[in-house]
């Protein structure tokens, strides 16, 4: 693979490629601070002539603060829940022997590829009958337990030595305490990867919140943005681009800080 003769050409091609990939985001940021008049001009302007926060102000005339909060609460709860439930189950699958262990693991593994399309109607019926329709818990509950999380945590705990367990037993530590006091503190790297992937998935999730949320009190950012973009404001590009910026920017910032974990996580899910 190593071809040292033409690195300059490689750099040029990669840079061109990079510009192509990044341009939509730059265009979004520039557009979000342009006036509506400027956005409609032919040909379009590059840099905003009179940069203005007006689009963001109009965005927050709507309860976008609330949507932002909903998105954040749901994403944090889903992330914490996944780390908690799947690390317990993943550890038990990796190091303990208990009845139906193999059956349970195969069952969960079998659901790894079930599309949300298949489950959303029964889940909706269930949530309605539990009296949870259009509530924040309804946005959280179905995502607390994800097969992928268990798979990842099990693989991680399999990589930790079993001697820790034996040593704990000899020292008289209880079985459950062995998990919480010995193995869990070592799970930092796996938690980082799983936490980031789960947070991202929840923040960007669309179909389920669209189905369950029916009022401003429970809309998440993507749902609110999609409803504006398909409603009577669908050509108000200033408002839409400001909204898109609000959805994209927090994730981009998180990504910039933690990109190593993101990319490791994706690679780990593929190559194991």
């Amino acid at each position, binding site marked *: *693979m190593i071809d040292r003769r033409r*690195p300059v050409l*490689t750099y040029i*091609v*990669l840079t061109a*490629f990079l510009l192509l*990939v*990044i341009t*939509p985001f730059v265009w979004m940021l520039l*557009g979000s601070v342009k006036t509506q008049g400027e956005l409609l001009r032919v*040909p*379009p302007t590059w840099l905003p002539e009179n940069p203005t926060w007006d689009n963001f102000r109009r965005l927050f005339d709507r309860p976008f603060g609330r949507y932002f909060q909903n998105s954040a609460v749901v994403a944090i709860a889903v992330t914490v829940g996944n780390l*908690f439930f799947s690390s*317990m189950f993943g*550890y*038990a*699958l*990796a190091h*303990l*022997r*208990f*009845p139906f262990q*193999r059956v349970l*693991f195969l069952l969960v593994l079998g*659901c790894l590829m*079930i*599309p949300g*399309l*298949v489950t959303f*109607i*029964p889940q*909706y*019926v269930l949530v309605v*009958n539990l009296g949870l329709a259009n509530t924040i818990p309804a946005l959280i509950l*179905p995502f607390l*337990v994800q097969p992928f999380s*268990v*798979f990842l945590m099990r*693989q991680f705990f*399999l990589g930790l030595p*079993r001697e820790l367990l034996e040593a704990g037993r000899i020292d008289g530590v*209880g*079985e*459950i305490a*062995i*998990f919480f006091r010995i193995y869990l503190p070592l799970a930092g790297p796996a938690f980082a990867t799983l936490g980031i992937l789960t947070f991202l998935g929840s*923040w960007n999730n*669309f179909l389920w919140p669209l189905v369950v949320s029916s009022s401003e009190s429970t809309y998440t950012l*993507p749902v609110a*943005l*999609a409803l504006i973009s398909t409603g009577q404001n669908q050509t108000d590009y200033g408002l*839409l*681009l400001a909204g*898109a910026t609000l959805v*994209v920017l927090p994730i*981009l910032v998180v990504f910039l800080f933690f990109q190593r974990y993101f*990319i490791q996580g*994706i*690679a780990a899910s*593929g190559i194991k």
Partner: protein
Amino acid sequence: MSAAPLAASGTGPSPGTGAGSGRRRRGRRAAAEARAGILLSLPFVVLFTVFIAWPVLQSMFMSFTDMRISDIRSPFSVDFVGLDNYATAFGDPVFRRAAINTGVFVLIGVPLTIVAGLAAALGLNQGVNRLRGLFRMGFYTPVVTSIVAVAVIWRFLLRPDNGLVNTVLGWVGIDGPNWLGDERTALLSLIVMAVWRNFGTSMVIFLAGLQAVDRGLHEAAALDGATSWQRFLHVTLPAIRPTMLFVMVTTSIGYLQFFEEPFVMTQGGPLNATISASMYTYNQFGFGNYGVAGAMAYLTFIVIGIVTLAQFRLMREK
């Protein structure tokens, strides 16, 4: 997907070697271990049963009944209608159109995503040391962003009169079409956007897979006068076959369910040119036809299963 054995590992106590008291102790310990295992599994298993396993079964059940929105409070007092919902789905010209659109989306989108991802990975592996992290991060950025936000941005880019794409095309004298408003270009536009958003994932996985390529073999082939294209074909490609399979399967599964793109950008139009199986299933749910929607969802699910199996076989045979 995993090279690790599926069965729980761990050696466990070897039976029948200790004295009587030792065996009793071991028995107590095994019981304590089983108890701990059950306690640690219980929260997940209960939630999983209620919110995933049960809905999967109920969804199948529902697809054979005449369930509608009015039955939502009594989901079991519905009548069985056999395969009627499946017949309805196949007989519905809009659903057939949606199925064709979804097929086109997959057949064009998956190869493009693989080629773009592999090209980016190979480029980054080509002695690019400085700025490697920057390029990788930049290419991966679209993956982490919300499809809804991205769809909004692309609708803006693709506007016919003053969108960025047509403006740039205008510089070289091309009069760009109304991308999303024209039946002939709408679906293609969504595909290009999907490739742009997803190639970063395949790039990262290919980058990991390229670690498996034998550098010595490359050098030997180069000494024997193999061109870089020949080396790519006969050294690199065979080595990354498992990676290729993984990317192909996961991308296909994702693309078979594409939903947000038409929902936000075209609402399935113009004239159903971009409606997808997922989106039409969602529409049927919106109309209250739960049984029909369930049948459509299961059809998509079955297709996902078949495509996945087919790809496994195809890649294994060679």
